[in-house]
């Protein structure tokens, strides 16, 4: 076994050699720390995105002009500017405009991915609501439901089944997009990986492990998406 390994060139020297793997696993704590931040930012960001997506989705399918206009403006703004710039602005521009106001990087991460993916989720929710026949809303209103009540008890529960698969898909993107935090020294998994790889030059094993950790976070959600999709189709 040892002989076999000794004959594999890329394990002996170069970016993927054994000593580099050993160095990485001796310091793996740094990556765990980063992964923890990523999980925290992703889960709170997801909660924010879902809340924003639902509210804005309902607003953009509403019959009133002002909430509809507001939701449209929000969605267009966040869908058509890069997340990277939004995050960079929150990090550097806000303290320049309002001296002394430093939003913590973790909060920037949560706000950044939450607001960005909230816009995408709003579109998913809007499409879901509009796919429920208008008759449902009219029937609910005729039974004395208020508009909000009709949405809350009649329309959204039905739309939920349709929008769930694309929403989990958004959640996967959201997790991966938390990696923009690396650019503002956010302490997330990508930053921890960059920092370690840059300091010691062991970038080969580092980025493989970092990629694997992201995969482990996203893959179960991607599988869930597939399951939900097939269930929706069955219905």
């Amino acid at each position, binding site marked *: 076994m040892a002989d076999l390994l000794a004959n594999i060139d890329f394990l002996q*020297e*170069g*970016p993927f050699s054994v000593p580099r793997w050993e160095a990485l696993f001796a310091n793996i704590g740094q990556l765990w720390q980063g992964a923890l931040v990523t999980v925290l930012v992703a889960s709170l960001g997801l909660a924010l995105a879902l809340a924003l997506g639902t509210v804005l989705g309902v607003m953009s399918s509403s019959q009133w002009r002002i909430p509809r206009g507001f939701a449209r403006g929000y969605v267009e703004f966040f869908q058509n500017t890069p997340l990277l710039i939004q995050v*960079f602005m929150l*990090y*550097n*521009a806000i*303290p*320049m405009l309002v*001296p*002394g106001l*430093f939003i913590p990087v973790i909060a920037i991460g949560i706000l950044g991915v939450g607001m960005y993916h909230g816009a995408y989720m709003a579109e998913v929710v809007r499409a879901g609501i509009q796919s429920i026949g208008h008759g449902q809303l009219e029937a609910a209103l005729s039974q004395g439901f208020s508009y909000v009540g009709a949405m809350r008890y009649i329309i959204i529960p039905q739309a939920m089944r349709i929008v769930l698969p694309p929403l989990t898909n958004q959640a996967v993107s959201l997790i991966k997009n938390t990696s923009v935090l*690396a*650019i*503002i*020294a956010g302490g997330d998994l990508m*930053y921890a990986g*960059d*920092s370690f*790889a*840059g*300091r*010691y*030059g062991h*970038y080969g094993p580092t980025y493989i492990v970092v990629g694997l950790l992201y995969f482990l976070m996203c893959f179960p959600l991607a599988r869930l998406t597939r399951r939900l999709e097939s269930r929706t189709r069955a219905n």
Partner: protein
Amino acid sequence: MKKSGLLLLLSLVLVVSAFALAGCGSKEPTEPADPGNEPAAELPAGVQAIKDSGQLRVGVKADVPNFGLLDAATNKYAGMEIDLAYALAERMGLTKDDVKFEAVTAKTRGPLLDNGQLDVVIATFTIKPERLEQWNFSEPYYQDEVGLLVKKSSGIKGLADLDGKVVGVAQGATSRDAVQVEADKAGIKVSFLEFATYPEINAALESGRVDAFSVDKSILSGYVTENSVILPDGFSPQDYGAAMKKGADDLTDFFNEMLAEMESNGDMAALLKKWNLS
């Protein structure tokens, strides 16, 4: 009708530019190298291979004044390290036009050497023991020290004032360790934030996210504004060397011979003077 005309035009432009690009890629060195620059001895195999390829691929900094700076207006690189690359090419019997520059950062220069995209990196690359295990380095061609850039309004006058402050450093640079060592010696506590590029650190300094920007003084000098100042403290003198892939000994020796020659005939002194580095 109008739309399809536009599409046709667009695809025409694409095709033409593709051809133009292909033309660039396969361009043979048409003019023979100046025989005056041809070394009398035969080139070592590792150097000959580069000469035969017709181009010398050099990783340089694009954002360090006097060392390697890309002029956005002319799209040309200029600096002391750029001139070293030209001298190396000419010594091989290539021309200046055969030098292909690639902008690198502290983080990208190692991988770009390892995967064979660059022949040599001349990019304010500090020679360190750990790095010598991974890459070949030439003899040093410049010595610099790590410095600190702070905002004048911060009132920071020296390293001692940095207690409890945040220092912005570049990922993959040696400045983090250098500042940490000095801070330990002075008995003060500093924390670090790492960024991928110098402009990002500078932006973080401007916005107050970091209290000091630390990197080699020569690099810092390019970021001084009327609002910021480089502290007099300087520590851990750093030797810059050209880096080559591990095992590229022919090229390393060839580069060292050139450096030795430049030292003895006064070319190096002239070069440093030209870029205000002496």
